[in-house]
């Protein structure tokens, strides 16, 4: 009798504790779900959701279900600021995932002011490294990749370059880096030409750069890559086309007009079973951005786990401090945060026969 009563009490107690733990913890995601950046933004969203669903399937973090509220910013900075305020004022989220340099730079001062952890796993403008103490970049800025690319290109004998860059935060950062790194490596920049985000007619820009007779075209664009490749091919241009991880676009890789394109690629891999599960769920391959954000979500969940273990409230400040305290994470690849920005191994890839192949590994 006593045992049963004791047992009932214990059961009741554990149920109560279970009730107290069954909260939903909400994070935010401000990504381009429509517009020229939608392909990448949707992949990023899927990456995060995939990780969160997996965690929830295992019972959540300390019994708490995780929910991510996604807001569409169309890669526009002003939309992002409005969404940021909405998520922090209405939903009181402690962590917001972000992508694309312009929007992230716009939100960075707000993140500092409101003490919300901003997690970037896709944008690479150099300004991001110092934009806010509350901004964590899980990938290096474009400056690192361009330095590697420049050295390799000059080593291959491509010394005369012409720059094609997109007129926004990411593209202009890339352009500035090319202007610095390419001459540093021993090359020479002959010309530069700007394009717009969402532009699909690259012929005038291609023609103008071709007129400078470069060995290689140094590219920093994030949208319209496929059109650019096709028009490059149609115009019968022969110089090498080089870029950074922005080039990792499945449609462009598959298209024959991109044969011979080279680019740096931040190394990130997913185990085959995971990639297969992702494909089964979302119908597309798990490519670069999906992997990046899956990995970033895992980092956030690990941090959340530690914050809850230490019985701390889930605030932006605590998540930020704990993340930097943990420092070393095992996402899809090992990452270390010595500063706000992680450093990652870089490969040189070339596009051949519809595939993107690594031809050199750089640490």
């Amino acid at each position, binding site marked *: 009798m006593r045992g049963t009563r004791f047992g009932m009490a214990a059961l009741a107690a554990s149920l109560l504790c279970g009730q107290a733990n069954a909260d939903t913890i909400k994070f935010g995601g401000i990504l381009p779900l429509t*517009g020229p950046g939608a392909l990448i933004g949707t992949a990023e969203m899927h990456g995060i959701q995939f990780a969160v669903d997996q965690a929830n399937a295992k019972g959540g973090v300390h019994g708490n279900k995780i929910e991510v509220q996604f807001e569409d910013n169309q890669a526009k900075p002003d939309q992002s600021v409005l969404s940021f305020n909405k998520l922090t004022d209405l939903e009181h989220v402690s962590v917001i995932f972000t992508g694309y340099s312009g929007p992230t730079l716009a939100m960075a001062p707000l993140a500092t002011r409101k003490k919300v952890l901003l997690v970037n796993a896709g944008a690479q403008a150099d300004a991001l490294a110092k934009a806010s103490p509350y901004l964590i970049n899980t990938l290096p800025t474009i400056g690192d990749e361009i330095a590697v690319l420049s050295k390799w290109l000059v080593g291959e004998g491509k010394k005369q370059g012409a720059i094609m860059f997109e007129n926004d935060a990411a593209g202009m950062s890339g352009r500035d880096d090319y202007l610095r790194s390419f001459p540093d490596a021993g090359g020479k920049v002959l010309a530069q*030409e*700007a*394009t717009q985000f*969402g532009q*699909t007619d690259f012929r*005038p820009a291609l*023609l*103008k750069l071709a007129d400078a007779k470069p060995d290689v075209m140094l590219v920093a664009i994030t949208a319209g890559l496929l059109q650019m490749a096709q028009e490059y091919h149609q*115009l019968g241009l022969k110089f090498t086309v080089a870029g950074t991880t922005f080039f990792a676009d499945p449609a462009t890789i598959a298209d024959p007009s991109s044969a011979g394109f080279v680019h740096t690629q931040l190394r990130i891999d997913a185990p085959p079973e995971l990639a297969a599960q992702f494909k089964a769920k979302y119908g597309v391959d798990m490519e670069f951005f999906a992997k990046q954000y899956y990995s970033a979500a895992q980092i956030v969940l690990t941090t959340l786990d530690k914050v809850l273990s230490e019985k701390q409230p889930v605030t932006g400040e605590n998540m930020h401090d704990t993340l930097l305290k943990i420092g070393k994470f095992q996402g899809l690849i090992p990452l270390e945060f010595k500063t706000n920005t992680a450093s990652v191994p870089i490969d040189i890839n070339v596009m051949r026969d519809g595939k993107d192949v690594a031809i050199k590994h750089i640490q």
Partner: protein
Amino acid sequence: MLALQLLATGVVTGCALGVVAISFALVYATTKIFHVAHAGIYTLAGYLAWSLVLWGAPLIVAVVVSIAICTAFGALIQSQLYARLERRRATHLVVLIASLGALAVIQNVIAGVYTPNILQFPLAWSGEVLPLGSVRLTYVQLLTIAVSLAAYVGTMWFAHHTILGKRIRAVASNPMLADITRLQPQSVYIYVIAIASALVCLPGILVPMDLGLQPYNGVTPLLTATIAMIAGGVGSITGAFVLSVAIAVLQNLSLLVMPGEWSIGVTFFIFVIFMLFRPTGLFAAAR
């Protein structure tokens, strides 16, 4: 040579723009309505054709069906929106705002249904190139030139040699007299918008075959075409077409001397100056 290639691509863009200009000019000269929703029909044509091709229809069938649907849609806008406003004696401002609203509706329905992502026409031959000396043009670009010139010739012939064409020109030059002499301006308006909508389907399909589909891409070509129409002199079909080609070629050639991102800005700047000093245009028809 760079200049020659830029000239060639300018001619291609200009020809497509020319058809937009003459179709818009037809509507404006006749009905005096600033039919900005025309940009919506231009956009709609491309998406309809794309869907049909995606479902397996041969290109020519897709084009014909798109034209049919867009013609009907244009006539609908005239009969249900503009005609009603005319009956209520709405001011030009009101009609213009209504047209802006219609444009917003069309563009955003397309964006909602098709997503705002850039879509490509699934045609294997669209990227194939024909080298002409030092100039390289794709088959789509050559087709654009051919079809646009044919459209221009066709429209000129229609305006001067058919009864409906002459009726349209009569209504355009004097609506009140046309009303009295029982030329029935209102039904002429419907014919005009229908024809204009059919015409604008041609560049509406050809340009995206070359550059891809985006829902909000119709406004800038329409405005540039309007500038061509005004600069060429309202009422002159030839003026509209020629100026369109001229503007496109100038925009392309301007790249030789300035960075590309300023070329559109310069076009509008020149237009504004034009408006201040010679608002009647270069080929102004006697009004």
